């Protein structure tokens, strides 16, 4: 039976810890960089196909089953986001906090 894939609760065996540390390091910015401006192409950007290695040595993350707390996220999303308000446009006077542009 094909081993299941983990995304949150990592169960590591011998040799897995180093791989785990590598993957977390590649997907998360070090907390010491919080608040600092970074380029999008930092050292943490994995190459394409990073997740197609098919490593089978991990346990399944149970967060995506029927008891997932993410079930709540979808159920109440309408009430949270349905405020009837629109934004306003103006020439940029200083850099915005967010940026909407085509995907890179």
């Amino acid at each position, binding site marked *: 039976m094909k081993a299941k894939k983990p995304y*949150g609760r990592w169960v590591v065996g011998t040799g897995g810890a180093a791989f785990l540390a590598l993957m977390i390091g590649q997907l998360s910015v070090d907390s010491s960089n*919080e608040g600092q401006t970074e380029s999008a192409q930092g050292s943490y950007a994995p190459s394409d196909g*990073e*997740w197609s290695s098919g490593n089978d040595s991990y346990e399944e*993350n149970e967060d995506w089953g029927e008891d997932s707390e993410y079930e709540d996220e979808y159920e109440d999303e309408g009430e949270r986001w349905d405020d009837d308000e629109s934004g306003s446009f103006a020439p*940029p006077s200083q850099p*915005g906090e967010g940026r*909407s542009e085509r995907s890179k």
Partner: protein
Amino acid sequence: MEKRLYAMHNTVRFMTRDGMSEEEWEKISAFFRYVDAEWSRFTPDSEVSRLNGLRIGESLRVSLPLARLLRKATRYLEQTDRLFSPYLLEQQQANGYSQSFPFTEAVAQTVPSPEQAIPFEIEERHVTRVGGGRIDLGGIGKGAAAMQAAQLLRKQHARGMVEAGGDVIVWSDGTPWTIDIIHPETGQEMTQLTLRQGGVATSNRRYRSWKTDQEDRHHLLDGRTGRSVTTSVVQVTAIANQLYDAEVMTKVAFQLTAEERQDLLFDWFPNAQLLVVEASSEITLEKKGERMRWNG
């Protein structure tokens, strides 16, 4: 406070007024690892790829977030009379989009007409193939992932933003957010949106484009023919209550004239706005019942 990660081939930014707990960050990181692994059509053993490999009559039990996303995307397909479709993988590949970007040239083949029937029946987490058509989530996957993260953060943070490859979702109990809308040609700030709560999505037909031996193609397809849309519109930014709506609107807007956008798009999404950039560099701001030239 800002944190970033790299997922879905994009930098994803998370901003909250106060810091994010380690538990929150681990949940969000884990979720995007899951999205990268299971929602991509380029990953051979992802759930999306396995669904695409099903034969008629075969079923697969998938993760809950993916099942719900497929149901939501199918509802948008029905709402927009197929102008939006998450089932155009074969058409994307036939147009030449068979690998992740960047690439500049590709071989195009005869584009098959999109299937008329919805290819999957979705019952809770069980997905059964009942017809042809394969999944390519595209931008709605990115928007859904950002929305999930925003939903989680909003429980603990009164003001926050998630920005995923140009899609933005914001919320605030007070001070609105400022969001720069970027010009497709210059890469500079074109205008600035002030928004307290909602989603912003931008699509551009020039960046994800490529040359074939027949003609130039791009990734924005006509949902009814499966071919790259022929239009003078270069970029569309949509602002809507929910990021899903904004994402769908950008894809559909390219397929409609300005008059059709008033008649159809703003009937489906009456509270939304569009910022449309033409090849002539003309920029218009469109709302239900209004269309005005935008000078910045």
